[in-house]
């Protein structure tokens, strides 16, 4: 996935992707910070890219927010540590979760360097205002994260966030196909990935 932060910068109050994703996947809106569940959220540069941020950051980067989500890494540390293989990597590269197998040990949360995972400290259902009857919720005691909308991809649809963006800031495609639109965008723009030095091979690119 490629996120064009230049477009996001022009619409600082836009949260269409976050709202659409959280609504489609029954992500609860829990007001207590310690119990928060998030699949896609906004963060400033020094939190998103702590390894390359410094105190002399240009205003160009300082003023914008970055959309963060699971990076669906090439070498996902969460998959390596999961004792039940509840988190696994699909052949197409998506880091998938089998909620039926998750025992809530939170090893994956410790392993993920991107903070992409949330733990259900409580039953999420009372905090879901308008549940989507087509998608399950989660239960108390499991970890959850963005799954790149596998349920949409299965029917040939793009992820919900990509479709929800009214300004076309999000692009989704096949990284392994050298002729795909996504690869063309990456070739033609200056892109950043989060914490590349860790060697996880994140698959979310940011045009800055």
């Amino acid at each position, binding site marked *: 996935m490629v996120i064009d932060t230049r477009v996001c910068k022009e619409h600082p109050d836009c949260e269409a992707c976050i709202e659409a994703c959280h609504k489609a996947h*029954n992500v609860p809106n829990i007001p*207590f910070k*310690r*119990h928060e569940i998030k699949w896609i959220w906004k963060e400033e540069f020094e939190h998103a890219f702590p390894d390359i941020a410094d105190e002399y950051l240009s205003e160009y980067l300082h003023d914008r927010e970055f959309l963060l989500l699971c990076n669906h890494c090439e070498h996902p540390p969460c998959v390596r540590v999961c004792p039940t293989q509840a988190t*696994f990597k*699909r052949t*197409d590269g998506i880091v*998938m979760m*089998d*909620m*039926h197998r998750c*025992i*809530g040990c939170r090893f994956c949360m410790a392993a993920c360097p991107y903070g992409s995972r949330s733990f259900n*400290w*409580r*039953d999420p*259902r*009372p*905090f*879901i*205002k*308008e*549940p989507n*009857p*087509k*998608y*399950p*919720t*989660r*239960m*108390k*005691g*499991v970890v959850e994260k963005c799954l790149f909308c*596998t349920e949409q991809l*299965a029917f040939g649809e793009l992820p919900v966030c990509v479709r929800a963006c009214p300004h076309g800031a999000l692009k989704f495609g096949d990284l392994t196909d050298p002729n795909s639109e996504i690869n063309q965008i990456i070739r033609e723009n200056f892109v950043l990935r989060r914490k590349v030095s860790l060697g996880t091979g994140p698959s979310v690119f940011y045009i800055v």
Partner: protein
Amino acid sequence: MHDAGKIIPGMIAFVLFVTIPFWANFGKAAPEPKPELPKEYKKCVESKDFMRREHMKLLRKWRFDVVRNNMRVYINSEGQTFDMSLQNECMRCHTQKKKFCDVCHDYVAAHPYCWNCHIPPEEKKGWATKETENLTEEVSSKQPASHH
């Protein structure tokens, strides 16, 4: 044996007392569970006999195929295709979990945890949201343990 007159009647009384549940229900059978079948649809994905016996195995296979193998279409013994989904396909016809699933599951005291996450058709309108205003962080620590 000393005090046989006390011990033997005592033992008989004890055995009778312990088996009270047996005597209380003697000759009475619990009514047979009668799950309500959908009226508009005559056939399930497989035969009634098969579904009765193997539905749990079928659902387990579906879950495995969808989540782990990314296969979402089920082809039944007659060659018809179905979307493998409990929440969206099974419950499309079986519109009442309480009158279908729960009837037999309660009878045999089986407690599958499907509905901890999957949304039964009755609950599509959502859950109590008024309560959330009164829920504090402390209350959450007193929630019952998970049944996972």
